[in-house]
């Protein structure tokens, strides 16, 4: 690790005033600091600022940014009304990491692209302008959607994919006041600035995540990966599907592991609304959701894998035989 100064903030205002890199669970940031991928001059410890409660808000739930992943997954209200969120969190990392990692930190974890971790190779996300080693390199786990010439990294997390499908809202405080972002619009596609993972501005702090009223729909998180446990997604699908008799009233579907952000397309979802479920319909939806998908050699398999996983999840969510 490079040297840094350490400050413990006792409340959010003090953290915002301190000026420095916020550290909460530290499960990703410290790992990257050991490798000198991250080299902050100043760490501001936000573990003691509060923001660690889960409380009702209207018919929804307000989750503090410092709520640990394990506590959120085990919360009886979340298990009952937003099981997609519990499932997505439990599908990620290990119990030790979930006990420490936080709601805000999970949103801010960095890519696991191997070149981002390797200081000896070019990486535009780590060192803007240096180049992308993944294109033509080891890219089996990397993006098939929304990538750019500059970067084909994926966002690695599970929880934010569920938050996008659940239409959650990210609440932020900062030097220019409080604001909100939809979970589906929190992360950025790389474009020509892959060093920016999210739409959080410098100095801003995630304070909470708001879950809207539960839809009462069938919620499924399916994660496809190389190992059964403690591995990142090759492809994941988060779905919340509300049925109305024999037709789909509303479906929200987000893909993980395929882009630099959870991948959702409202115009694709509109294909499903009011329609009776069928294999043909789900195929058309998957094709629309994956329109423009591009493999880079090693990761070509992700395109048909994502298509099949979407169809299987929608089949299960609409009461068909689980494929």
């Amino acid at each position, binding site marked *: 690790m490079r040297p840094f100064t350490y400050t*413990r903030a006792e409340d959010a205002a003090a953290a915002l005033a301190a000026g420095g890199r916020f550290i909460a669970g530290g499960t990703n940031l410290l790992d990257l600091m*050991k490798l000198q991928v991250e080299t902050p001059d100043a760490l501001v410890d936000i573990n003691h600022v509060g923001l660690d409660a889960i409380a009702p808000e209207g018919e929804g739930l307000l989750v503090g940014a410092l709520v640990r992943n394990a506590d959120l997954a085990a919360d009886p209200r979340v298990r009952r009304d937003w099981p997609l969120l519990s499932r997505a969190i439990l599908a990620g990392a290990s119990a030790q990491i979930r*006990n420490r990692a936080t709601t805000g930190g999970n949103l801010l974890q960095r890519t696991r692209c191997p070149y981002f971790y390797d200081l000896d190779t070019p990486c535009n996300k780590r060192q803007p302008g240096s180049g992308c080693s993944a294109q033509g390199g080891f890219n089996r786990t990397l993006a098939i959607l929304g990538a750019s010439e500059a970067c084909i990294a994926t966002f690695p997390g599970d929880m934010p994919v569920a938050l996008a499908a659940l239409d959650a809202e990210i609440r932020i405080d900062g030097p220019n006041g409080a604001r909100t972002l939809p979970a589906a619009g929190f992360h950025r596609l790389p474009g020509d600035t892959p060093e920016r993972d999210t739409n959080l501005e410098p100095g801003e702090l995630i304070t909470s995540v708001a879950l809207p009223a539960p839809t009462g729909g069938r919620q499924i998180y399916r994660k496809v990966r190389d190992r059964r446990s403690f591995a990142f997604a090759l492809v994941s699908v988060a779905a919340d599907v509300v049925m109305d008799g024999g037709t789909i009233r509303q479906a929200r579907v987000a893909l993980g592991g395929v882009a630099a952000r959870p991948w959702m397309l409202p115009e694709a979802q509109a294909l499903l609304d009011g329609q009776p479920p069928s294999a043909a319909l789900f195929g058309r939806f998957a094709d629309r959701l994956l329109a423009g998908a591009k493999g880079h050699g090693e990761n070509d398999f992700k395109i048909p894998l994502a298509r099949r996983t979407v169809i299987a999840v929608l089949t299960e969510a609409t009461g068909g035989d689980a494929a």
Partner: protein
Amino acid sequence: MDITLTINGERRTLPLEDPRVTLLDALRQHLDLPGTKKGCDHGQCGACTVMLNGRRINACLTLAVMHQGDEITTIEGLGTPEALSPLQAAFIRHDGFQCGYCTPGQIVSATAMLAEFREGWPSNVSNDLSAPRLDDEEIRERMSGNLCRCSCYPNIVDAIRETAESVA
């Protein structure tokens, strides 16, 4: 700067000249508690598992300076050669190790895992999120943060299952 924390029930003061010291290195190199092991030092192997205020965490992925006032439990706090903890005795009975390097982490992790299960926490393989049952698949999933390069997993699962049944 000095920090004070409680380790295995004893208040300890830790002088820190540099905030870069991880909790793991503080335990092993500054506090003379080498039972907690350094494996990968990146949170992937679980050899460094300790309990922080009763919850299992990777001691390699947190800074000692962040733990002023916290309670830490290490393998040294779970049992002694004369008075083994139930899981320590079960690991010996079932031969749940070969080289033994991952064993402290396995035992601290399993101790906390059984407490999580008693609190009703679900896992990724729980069919019913509200009423999980601790079968072998559950034990393997809940222990997936602890690797054993000697691959003593079947015996580790046997030791944990027996302990879970005896204290249930």
